[in-house]
């Protein structure tokens, strides 16, 4: 065995060892789990898209874009853009935001655009454990102000501009 071959073998073995370590680290990256967002097109949406082709004749009052952020709970870090349509939150599979939270009801709260065009309303859908906006338990639809925590079971949501 020539000196060169042996050197190549020696360095090759080290390189292989490190490749293995890097491969393992690569596998570990898949463990950094978040949430998967899948687009779900509904009949209504498809219809609206077709209708939206011509320019809207009377532009609705510009609504600020806002996002709903999960700040606590198993879905922490999830964000959801609020648009024109109401958003249903709960454990049921038909909700927009499906919570993985034992203390949430199947359909827990609904967040709807306020009729006056500014802001959003949050409404408790007779959930078992109730919803709390700040410190108050929701009984009627109330305006959802940015920065006020909305607690649903073990999940806390916040509205951000």
């Amino acid at each position: 065995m020539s000196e060169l071959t042996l050197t190549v073998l020696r360095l090759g073995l080290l390189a292989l060892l490190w490749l293995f370590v890097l491969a393992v680290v690569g596998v570990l990256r898949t463990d950094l789990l978040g949430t998967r967002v899948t687009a779900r097109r509904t009949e209504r949406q498809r219809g609206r898209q077709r209708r939206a082709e011509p320019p809207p004749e009377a532009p609705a009052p510009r609504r600020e874009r806002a996002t709903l952020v999960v700040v606590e709970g198993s879905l922490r870090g999830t964000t959801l853009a609020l648009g024109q349509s109401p958003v249903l939150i709960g454990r049921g599979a038909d909700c927009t935001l499906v919570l993985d939270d034992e203390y949430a009801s199947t359909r827990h709260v609904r967040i709807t655009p306020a009729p006056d065009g500014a802001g959003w309303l949050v409404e408790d859908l007779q959930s078992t454990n109730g919803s709390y906006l700040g410190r108050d338990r929701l009984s009627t639809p109330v305006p959802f102000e940015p920065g006020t925590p909305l607690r649903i079971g073990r999940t806390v949501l916040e509205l951000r501009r």
Partner: protein
Amino acid sequence: MATVLPVYPTTRRNVELVLVVAAVLISCGAWAVVGLTEDGSLPGGLFAHGGGLGALAVVLHLLLRWRAPHADPVLLPVATLLNGMGLVMLHRLDLSEGTSAASRQFIWSALGIAAAGAVVVVLRDHRVLRRYTFTAMVTGLVLLALPLLPVLGKEINGARIWVGIGPLSFQPGEIAKIVLAVFFAGYLVVHRDALSLTGPKVLFLRLPRARDLGPILLAWAVSVGVLVLQRDLGTSLLFFGLFVAVLYVATERVSWIVIGLGLFVAGAVFAATTMSHVRSRVDIWLHPFDADNADSAYQLLQGLYGMASGGLLGTGLDRGRPDIVPFANSDFIYASFGEELGLAGLFALLLLYAVLVERGMRTAIGVRDGFGKLLAAGLAFSVALQVFVVVGGVTRVIPLTGLTTPFLAAGGSSLVSNWIVVALLLRVSDLARRPAAEVRNGPEPGDTGVTQAVRIP
């Protein structure tokens, strides 16, 4: 409109298979390099040992597919590679020293992997172990005390930690480590509230009540007993460190670590001042280059010189002289690797251990039951502490103690017990990564109650 759902990991069993095969191939490659360097030909035992290790690891992988399909995918490959590299280094040292440690280690590897497979198949749910909390305590203490019995116990190299039946000898302390981890987890998951919620607050520490100090004092007394009666620094340190770590994980209170370290320092000072063999270890650690210590520090110094001559990339397998160091294939196998694979190789090995420990801790975070959390955290921490104590001892960070390097060092009891640790971590991680039962509610309004079918272990 969009749906947002939590993502559960896929099983990744195919990735595991690829990594296992890669680990076996790397080990075979290293074995071949030893032979090529020695006499330019492929060594005879290459296919027997490499193929044997590969077959065993693949069988364990298939058992995982059958019985623990959601188990963590990197634990098995990492353990296989560490075991394989250990075999290579033992084979290489056999060539210099004319021993046959590698073949014996290979038989122990087979036994270890078989034991791991048995654990995965027989133990369907780790929560069963919780029923045997106090059985585990008694078993653990008996195992620790076994070497002290007059006929069974054997004293080898100054430490009375062996049990010998005829030509076979075994270190029951290695198995005691696992059994005691089960006991600590089962005991603390019940008593953690009493240990974490009450007690006076002094400065920034919430101290426990005096009567809650009982368990930690008992653990300390037992570990000091091991130190005095069996003269084994390593097992005593591992045992006490494991208890304090699990206690901290269970209670989340820093005061337990402070108390544990305080007790440890008291014990260490006591041992270093009164017991001659501990004092000489500390002396060797602090002054290895003194002329007075020339004989006693010989092993440590040769290990240090070996690692120094290895440098960054090592001398290459079979091109250094790691066999000069006494016990190069057990206590000082880390120095042997340092000499022949260099710092780059040592760090790769350390990273493999880090991955092993990280997966254990990740399992502890992911699993939903408290017992599983404490068990996984305890087992993972025991591996971490063992690696720290051995590597720290060899590299003169802390005084040298008699613990074995997991998976690498020659020694059957350690190898079998570490494979069982990996099997238990695999079992817990299977539950941690298994997706929660799919919840499908009917569309009826007001249907909020969800009934899930849960399998009772």
